[in-house]
């Protein structure tokens, strides 16, 4: 089918450079659902909100604005697949639209590279587009499923920066504004034929953000470990996320946790786009699941 909706596809760093499967999945699955993702050429790191926000917010604004301008030049709204990128790209876009002073400051800098931020586009997370029945919606996803993930117990990690802080977020679907006990991702998981599973402290952070993973790895891992304990208790077959950085923390993190704390979980961690890919019949090879730190095999056996 031909695409009804076109977006400039902002990749960020970790998806293309660590989990290319999720990038491939995002593009293929979206097309099946009537979304065309056009490459945003020359995009850079969003930049990492934790690192750059901590050093100098002005740099953060300017760097994110540059990525926004690239999309403005394409006259296309941005779609992305990472919570961290969402914080940078969406939030800076939002701030610059509402604070003239900030915008002028940023354009001052952009002038030096012949760019100007106009505030002419919007930014969306793929997950929110997937849930919005005006664009895709669970029903349409269910119809696109050729290989239902029947019997698989899947828990959701929402992450932080897509939905928090609630007070300055704006979503078509108000369900997404529920930051204490959201269930919209579970609806999407159910649409794939899998069984969504609740677990303690579902909304807790993965621990990687704010530069903590780099600053104090064991501290960051201890947070992830607490979540893994709760996930194990709920005995799930896989954890799904909508943020490659969270995915890195849980996937590669399990290896580091094994080294540092001597505990093992072997819990497969997949980006929702990867799950969607499987459900739409993509093979593990199409998704480069072999790049994952934790083998997805036991889970794959369940669902393939």
């Amino acid at each position, binding site marked *: 089918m031909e695409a009804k909706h076109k977006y400039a596809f902002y990749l960020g760093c970790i998806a293309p450079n660590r989990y290319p499967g999720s990038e491939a999945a995002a593009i293929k699955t979206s097309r099946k659902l009537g979304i065309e993702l056009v490459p945003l050429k020359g995009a850079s790191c969003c930049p990492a909100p934790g690192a750059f926000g*901590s050093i100098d917010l002005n740099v953060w604004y300017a760097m994110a604005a540059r990525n926004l301008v690239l999309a403005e030049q394409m006259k296309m709204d941005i779609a992305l697949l990472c919570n961290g990128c969402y914080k940078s790209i969406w939030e800076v876009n939002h701030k610059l639209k509402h604070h003239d002073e900030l915008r002028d400051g940023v354009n001052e800098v952009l002038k030096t*590279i012949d760019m100007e931020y106009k505030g002419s586009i919007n930014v969306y997370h793929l997950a929110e587009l997937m849930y919005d029945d005006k664009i895709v919606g669970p029903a349409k996803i269910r119809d696109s499923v050729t290989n239902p993930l029947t019997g698989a117990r899947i828990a959701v990690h929402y992450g932080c920066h897509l939905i928090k802080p609630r007070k300055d977020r704006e979503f078509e679907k108000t369900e997404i504004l529920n930051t204490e006990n959201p269930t919209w991702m579970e609806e999407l998981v159910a649409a794939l034929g899998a069984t969504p599973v609740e677990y303690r402290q579902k909304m807790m952070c993965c621990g990687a953000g704010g530069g903590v993973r780099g600053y104090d790895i064991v501290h960051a891992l201890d947070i992830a470990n607490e979540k893994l304990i709760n996930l194990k208790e709920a005995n799930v077959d896989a954890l799904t996320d909508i943020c490659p950085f969270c995915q890195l923390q849980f996937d590669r993190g399990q290896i580091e946790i094994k080294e540092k704390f001597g505990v093992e979980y072997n819990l497969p961690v997949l980006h929702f786009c990867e799950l969607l890919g499987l459900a739409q019949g993509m093979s593990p090879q*199409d998704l480069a699941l072999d790049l994952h730190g934790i083998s997805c095999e036991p889970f794959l056996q369940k669902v393939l």
Partner: protein
Amino acid sequence: MAKTKGYPEALETKLRDRYMYGDDSHPEFTDSVEKISMSIPHMCYQCGTCTASCPSAPRSSYRIRKFVRRVVLGLENEALTDPDLWLCTTCYSCTDRCPRDIAPTDVIMAMRNLAFKRDIIPVNFLKTVQAIYTTGHGVPNNDVNRAARVKLGMDADPPTTHTYKEFIPGIQKILDYYKLKANADRIVKEREG
């Protein structure tokens, strides 16, 4: 400022003057934090909702409530030199729940910005800057990944600054505008020689 007692060093530390003095407080610190954070920490009534929401608090001495308190009182040194400042994972749970509608997370970020102005910053943050300066990416591509991308039928490098390197000078211009790379290099050198 705390008075020194002129004791031998060991005693001087043990019996250190722990009073808070009026001149420990710097109102301009409160102001600059409010300006950078675009939030209102001076409205804090110390209910502790933030700390109770914080994933870092139960596993460290990091207390966001105390940091906000330091902003209220303008205790600049105490706030900026405390290594806990860097333990916030920016999960925004505190911001979501604060009954006074303060954004404690953004308050922390503002304090980190001010700390950096005093060269107080963990090197890992600066390494990201250096990576982006050269590649445009905080987490750049590598050969294993390139191979995998090719296997997936994609280009070895994504259509970002990795493929379109002509955009990198622009990025460097922006970073240089704020002297970020220079400062990063200098500080990293000082720390690691």
